């Protein structure tokens, strides 16, 4: 879902970059020192994820893990994915330097939004609700990112609906896989160390 160099018009590039700068600034400000390794680790997970090709479905699509980034990092998903996308652009020519802002925004914004939308569900006492929330938090950002990409491509590709449908259909298996990854990650972290998610530690249970 990396948009290549030379596809988008300057206004979209500049707008995307501006939004990404805002997101990165918020992310940097909100990141505490002890969270920096976590940001770097999720950044590398995102960097590596684009090499994992899911061979199911009509098109070759790769894992994205933007939902997981947003879920575990919140706003820090912006700097995390900016760095990873920069590395992908420089080393592998996925995306590109001029589209870096747009690509960062496309990936990070839906992820951050989903975290805020579903965190209530994820931390509810009801296990089924919690699992559903985590799944949505992993899966939905992929689709929303795809819709953002399709919206930005309106001027180059034939039509929004067609492009959006292609992207979403191609990424359906990815969404399911990422949803399951998020469920696994959340249930593990909740058991082991809930404060990673910005929650108060469950001290009363740990003893």
């Amino acid at each position, binding site marked *: *879902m990396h948009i290549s160099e030379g596809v988008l018009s300057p206004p979209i590039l500049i707008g995307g970059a501006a939004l990404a700068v805002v997101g990165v600034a918020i992310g940097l400000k909100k990141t505490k020192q002890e969270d920096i390794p976590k940001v770097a680790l999720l950044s590398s997970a995102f960097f590596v994820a684009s090499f994992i090709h899911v061979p199911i479905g009509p098109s070759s699509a790769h894992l994205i893990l933007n939902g997981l980034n947003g879920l575990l990092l919140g706003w820090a998903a912006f700097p995390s994915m900016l760095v990873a996308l920069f590395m992908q652009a420089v080393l*592998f020519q996925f995306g590109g330097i001029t589209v870096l802002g747009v690509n960062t925004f496309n990936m990070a914004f839906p992820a951050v939004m989903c975290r805020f939308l579903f965190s209530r569900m994820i931390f509810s006492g009801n296990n089924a609700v919690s699992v559903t929330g985590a799944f949505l938090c992993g899966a939905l950002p992929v689709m929303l990112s795809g819709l953002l990409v399709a919206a930005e491509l309106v001027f180059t590709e034939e039509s929004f609906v067609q492009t959006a449908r292609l992207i979403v259909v191609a990424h359906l298996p990815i969404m399911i896989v990422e949803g399951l990854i998020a469920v696994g990650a959340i249930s593990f972290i909740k058991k082991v160390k809930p404060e990673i998610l910005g929650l108060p530690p469950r001290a009363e249970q740990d003893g």
Partner: protein
Amino acid sequence: MIFSRTRFIIALSVSLLVLSVTSAHAHRVNIFAYAEGNTVMTESFFSGGKPAMNSKVEVFDSSGKKLLEGKTDNEGIFSFAIPARDDLKIVVYAGEGHRSEYIVKKSELPASEGEPVADSAEPDSAASGTQGINNRSTQPVSAGEPVAISNDCITEEIMNKTIKDRIEKEKIKIKKDMLLEQRRNAGPSIVKLIGGLGYIFGIMGLWLFFIGRKKSSE
């Protein structure tokens, strides 16, 4: 307990890395083109070698004017007759914002049409060298010149033409080999992947370093 979260995330990254070794596919479209006779062959494929099927291809001249467009077939191939003697910029749009371009230089185009040779009207002269030679050999004869002299000229001409054709063919073969090689290496290498991870952690180190310095100076 302190290390458990980092341990979890490390485990996640490592397992992803291991997975990635087995299937290094990713999305980036490549296009490669070469001139063969009077047509330009283009091949588009994703990193990983999978062909970019049914993708729009546009051809521009050096001034940026669009000359023609078409779609790739199931093997990612799109070929077209050389539209102009110019640098041809060939752009492929593989959907989802994937785009790549390749420039076929004017000098790479076979010079059959541009040459001021009388019998160049024949379009497939480059395809069969002997055909062109036969044509040439009949021409001076029909003009009524002495056979012996023209024979001398022909042998030299034949030689030149044969060599030229041969070189052209070899050039095309080399280009095809290059294409194959490029395709095989289209996937990103594991070395770069690990390098990228190194950079990310290097940036983390820098970030921590500057925060630490700020704190200690306060």
